[in-house]
């Protein structure tokens, strides 16, 4: 009886399955009169690269992309902890960058973008009158 769940069982099942295949092939060649060693060599050669085949089988598992992501994250973590100076620089740069952007955005937002705290604030206008005087204009601001 075999158990379908769990990574280790999965691996073992795959090993048993491939081993069975090779053994059958070896037996076939031995029945044709080859020595055990010769039969084994030939079976393996015909099968091709066993590890590559195993890897390709693993890639067919339904949630394999999750495993890939997990592996990438672990790899990233390992590489970063191997060069802490670099990691600090990267995190510092990101923190400064994000902080500065946020600060500037909040400033711009409150000064320029946020609607004024009046009802129908889009109807507030600034009205100015221009009085021609000698060579210059005097501005009389007025609010409506």
């Amino acid at each position, binding site marked *: 009886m075999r158990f379908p769940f769990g990574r280790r069982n999965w691996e073992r099942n795959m090993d*048993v399955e491939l081993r*069975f*295949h090779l053994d059958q092939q070896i037996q076939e060649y031995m029945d044709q009169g080859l020595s055990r060693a010769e039969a084994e060599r030939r079976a393996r050669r015909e099968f091709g690269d066993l590890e590559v085949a195993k890897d*390709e*089988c693993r*890639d*067919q*598992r339904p949630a394999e992309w999750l495993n890939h992501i997990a592996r990438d994250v672990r790899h990233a973590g390992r590489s970063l902890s191997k060069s802490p100076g670099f990691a600090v620089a990267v995190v510092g740069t990101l923190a400064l960058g994000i902080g500065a952007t946020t600060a500037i955005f909040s400033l711009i937002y409150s000064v320029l973008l946020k609607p004024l705290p009046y009802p129908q604030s889009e109807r507030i206008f600034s009205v100015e009158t221009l009085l021609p005087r000698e060579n210059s204009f005097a501005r009389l601001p007025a609010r409506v």
Partner: protein
Amino acid sequence: MLILKIAALEPIHGYAIVQRLQQVSKDALQIRQGSLYPALYRLESRGWLKATWKMTEANREAKFYSLTREGRRQLENETTGWKRLCKAISLVLETTE
């Protein structure tokens, strides 16, 4: 498609699929053994094949693949598609003008 067809006949293990395909096609078709198993695993995870562990005649444990209902439908679709393609190609090849 060929693997599905072979597995449609009876539950069968990987090694026998290679043998059967060679024998049925009179040695014209040979699966590369290294790519057979990834293909089987893919067909299984798509739900077209299901696998059970059984004893062989030589009393060894082996993984036997058989077709699911969905696999049977897939096989029918692929077979129709293939036949249509073959007909089209031979129409072109047999044109005399």
